[in-house]
C-alpha cells in the first residue's frame, strides 16, 4: 500500500528542459529587480513612513496566513490531502469569537461610575481570552467532525475522492453558516481599549504611523502559537506520534500508535489554529460573514505551497512572506494593488522553478521518498 502510494503521485514535471525553465525564472527575477531599482533608485516616490505602514500591515496579515497555512501543512503531512474546507473552519472560529464578544458586550456589569458598563469593557482581557478559547474550541470541534464525517470514510479511496469531499464540505459549511446567520456582514465588537484603529503612535519622518493594538496582538499571538506548536511537535509524545504517522502510517501502527486517533488530533490542532486565526482576523479587520474564510483559505494554501507543503516552519515562513509580498509588493514594484495576487503568484512560480518543493520543502520530501 505504502509503496503504491508513493509511486503513483510522481508528479510529471513540465516537458520544458530545465535550462529553459530556469532561464524564464531568471528573466522574471531580473524584471522584478529592474522594477525595484526604478521604484527605489530612480522614482523614490515613497518615504520611510509609507514603508513602515506597509510593513506593519504585511506582518499582521502574514501572521494570520501562517496560522492557517500550518493547518493545511499538518493535514497534508499526515494524510497527503489538501483540506480545502480549512478556510471554512477558520470562518466557524470567526463566528464563534464574534458570538462570544457579542454576549460579553450585552452583559452589563454596573459600577458606581457607569451603570451601563458592559462585561467586555469592564474585563477586556477576560473577554478576549474567552473569545479566543471558544473560537478555538468550536473550530477544533468542527475540524474533528469534518475529518470523521467527510474524510475518514474515504481514507482508502483514491486520492481525488477526499479532495472532492473536501470541496463539498467547504460548500456545505459556507451555506450552513449562511442559513444560520443570514448572509449579512456583521461587525466584530471589540472591547473599547483595543478598538480597531487605536494603537501606539510613532512619528516617522514627521508623519504619524499607527501601530494598531489588534495588529500587535495578532502578530505576537500567532508567533506564540507557532512556537508552542513547534515545541509540541518536537518535544511531546503526541508530536512524536504525529511525525511517525506522517512518515509511514503502517509502520507507525505496528509500533503501537493508534493512527486514527493521531489523525483526529491533527485535525483538532489544525482546527484550533484556524479558529485562533479567525478570531484574530475578526478583531483586526472587523468583518464577519459566511464567506470570510474563502480568501484567507486560498491565500494560506498558497503560502503553504510556497514554504513547502508538509513542512511546518515552511508554512510559517510562507505565510509571513505572502503577507509581506501582498502589502509591500505592489508599491515596491510600482504596480496597481489590483494585481497584488498576480505579483504573489509570479513570485510563487519563480520560487517553484528554483525550489520545486517550496522554500523549505526539499529536505523533508526526500526523506519521505
Amino acid at each position: 500500500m505504502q509503496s503504491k502510494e508513493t509511486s503513483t503521485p510522481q508528479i510529471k514535471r513540465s516537458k520544458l528542459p530545465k535550462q529553459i525553465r530556469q532561464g524564464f525564472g531568471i528573466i522574471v527575477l531580473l524584471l522584478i529587480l529592474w522594477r525595484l531599482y526604478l521604484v527605489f533608485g530612480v522614482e523614490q516616490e515613497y518615504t520611510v513612513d509609507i514603508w513602515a505602514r506597509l510593513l506593519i500591515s504585511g506582518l499582521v496579515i502574514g501572521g494570520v496566513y501562517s496560522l492557517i497555512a500550518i493547518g493545511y501543512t499538518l493535514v497534508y503531512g499526515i494524510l497527503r490531502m489538501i483540506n480545502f474546507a480549512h478556510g471554512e473552519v477558520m470562518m466557524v472560529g470567526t463566528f464563534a469569537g464574534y458570538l462570544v464578544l457579542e454576549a460579553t458586550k450585552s452583559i452589563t456589569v454596573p459600577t458606581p461610575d457607569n451603570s451601563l458598563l458592559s462585561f467586555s469593557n469592564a474585563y477586556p482581557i477576560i473577554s478576549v481570552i474567552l473569545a479566543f478559547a471558544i473560537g478555538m474550541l468550536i473550530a477544533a470541534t468542527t475540524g474533528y467532525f469534518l475529518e470523521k464525517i467527510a474524510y475518514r470514510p474515504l481514507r482508502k479511496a483514491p486520492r481525488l475522492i477526499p479532495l472532492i469531499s473536501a470541496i463539498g464540505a467547504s460548500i456545505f459549511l459556507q451555506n450552513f453558516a449562511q442559513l444560520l446567520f443570514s448572509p449579512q456582514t456583521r461587525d466584530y465588537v471589540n472591547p473599547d481599549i483595543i478598538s480597531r484603529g487605536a494603537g501606539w503612535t510613532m512619528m516617522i519622518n514627521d508623519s504619524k504611523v499607527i501601530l494598531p493594538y489588534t495588529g500587535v496582538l495578532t502578530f505576537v499571538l500567532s508567533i506564540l502559537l507557532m512556537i508552542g506548536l513547534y515545541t509540541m511537535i518536537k518535544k511531546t509524545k503526541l508530536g512524536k506520534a504525529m511525525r511517525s504517522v506522517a512518515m509511514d502510517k503502517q509502520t507507525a501502527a505496528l509500533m503501537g500508535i493508534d493512527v486514527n486517533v493521531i489523525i483526529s488530533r491533527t485535525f483538532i490542532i489544525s482546527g484550533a489554529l484556524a479558529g485562533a486565526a479567525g478570531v484574530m482576523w475578526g478583531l483586526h479587520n472587523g468583518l464577519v460573514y459566511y464567506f470570510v474564510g474563502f480568501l484567507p483559505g486560498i491565500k494560506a494554501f498558497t503560502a503553504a505551497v510556497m514554504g513547502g507543503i508538509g513542512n511546518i516552519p515552511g508554512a510559517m515562513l510562507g505565510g509571513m512572506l505572502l503577507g509581506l509580498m501582498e502589502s509591500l509588493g505592489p508599491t515596491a514594484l510600482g504596480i496597481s494593488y489590483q494585481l497584488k495576487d498576480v505579483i504573489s503568484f509570479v513570485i510563487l512560480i519563480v520560487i517553484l522553478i528554483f525550489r520545486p518543493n517550496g522554500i523549505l520543502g526539499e529536505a523533508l520530501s526526500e526523506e519521505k521518498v
Partner: protein
Amino acid sequence: MKAMKFLAVFIVLAMLLAACGQAVATEAPAAATEAPAAATEAPVASGAPEDVCAADEWGCAKIEPGQTIKIGMGSPMTGGDASFGIDAEQSGKLAVADAEDFNGFQFELLAEDDMGGAEGGAAVANKFVADPTLVGVAGHLFSGASFAAAPIYEAVGIPMLSPSATNPGLTQQGFKVFNRVPFTDAAQGSAAAEFIYNELGIRKIAVLHDGEDYGKGLAEIVKSSFEGLGGEVVEFMGITSKEADYTPVLTTIAAKQPELLYFGGYTQDGAVLANQMKTTGLENTIFFGCDGTFGTDFLNRAGDNAEGSYHATPRTPPATPEKDKFDADYNTAYGVGPGELSPFSWNSYDCVTVLITKVREVGFVGSDGALYIPRSALVAAVRGLTDYVGISGTYTCDATGECNIQGPQFHKVENGEFVAVN
C-alpha cells in the same frame, strides 16, 4: 475501490444527464408558451378575450382559477453575493404581500438563484419561460445574468424590470422586454465628477473601485469625466472586494495627497475604507461614495469616520409613509433593516410592485373564468411606465427601457445623518 470508481462515473453521468435535461427543457418553453395561444384560437367565436390573444404577438398567459399569477426574480442567492439575492427576494415578498388579489387571482413571487452570472441567468430564464403562468420578471439583479437572460425572455414576451443591473450596454441592445429602474453608471459617474469639480471645487482626486463590473465601470467614468473637466486623478486602482484590509492601498494613495477619494463599490468595502482612511494618513481626505455605499448601514459601520463623506441616491421623495411602512415591515419580518443586506431593497420592492400594477392594467377575465394576460400588451405597458411614484424614486421609462432619467442626488453625512446637497 472498484465501487468507488463506479460511483464516480455514475455521478459524472448523472450530472451530464441533468445538464442535457436542462438543454432539452430550453426547447420546451417555446412550445409551452405557444400552447395557450393555440388553445385559445379554437373558440374564437365565443368572445373578445380570444381575439385579443390571437392578435397579440406573443399570445396570452392563461391563468386557470386556483393558479397564481407568477412574478419571477433572478438573483444570486448563494456564494459571495448571496446577500443581494436574499435581500431582493425578501423585498419582493413584501411587495407581493402588499398586493391585493386581482379578480380573485393571487400574485406569487418565484425567486430563483442565478448566482449573478451568465450561465445561471440563462438557466433561470429557461426555467421561467417554461412556466406558462409566469408573466413578468423583476430582475435579473446583476448585469451579467441580465445580458444572458434578456434574449430568452425576448423570445416569449416576458417583460423584465431590473432593480439593480446598471451596465450601460443593457439598454442598447434593442430589447423590447428589458427595463431597469436604477440610473446608469454613466449618468452617475459624470454627475459625480461634475459635482466634485464644480460644487466642491476639488482638483486632485484618487479613484478606487472594487474590481466588479459595477464599481469599476463607475470609477472609470468618474476618472474620464473628471480628467475631461481638467482635474487630476492621482491614482486609479482596484481593490479586492471583501478583503477587509486595505491599509496598504490607502497608505500608497496617501503618499500622493489627494483631496478626495472616490470609491465605486458597495457599503461593505466602502465603510472599511472610510475607517481605515483615518489610520493611514488620509485623515483629511474626503470620502466620496456612490449609490452602492448609501444607507444607514454605512453610518453604523463607519460611525464617526462617516462624517463629511458623500454618497448618491436616486432622487427620492423625502420619507413617504409608504417607504416608512416598508421599512417597518422589513424590519419586523426579517430582523434587519432594509438596505443592510444590499442597497437595492427599495428598488426590488418597486420593481415587483410595478409589474403587479401593470398586470392589473392589461389582464382580463375570460368567459371561461380564467385570467388572460396578453403578453405584448404587458411588455408595452411596462415600457410605457410614466410618473410612477415608488418608494425608491419617481420613474418614467424612455424608449430604450431606462426608467430613471432624473440622475442621482448627492448626500453628505452631517452629524450622523444624510443631508441632500444638490
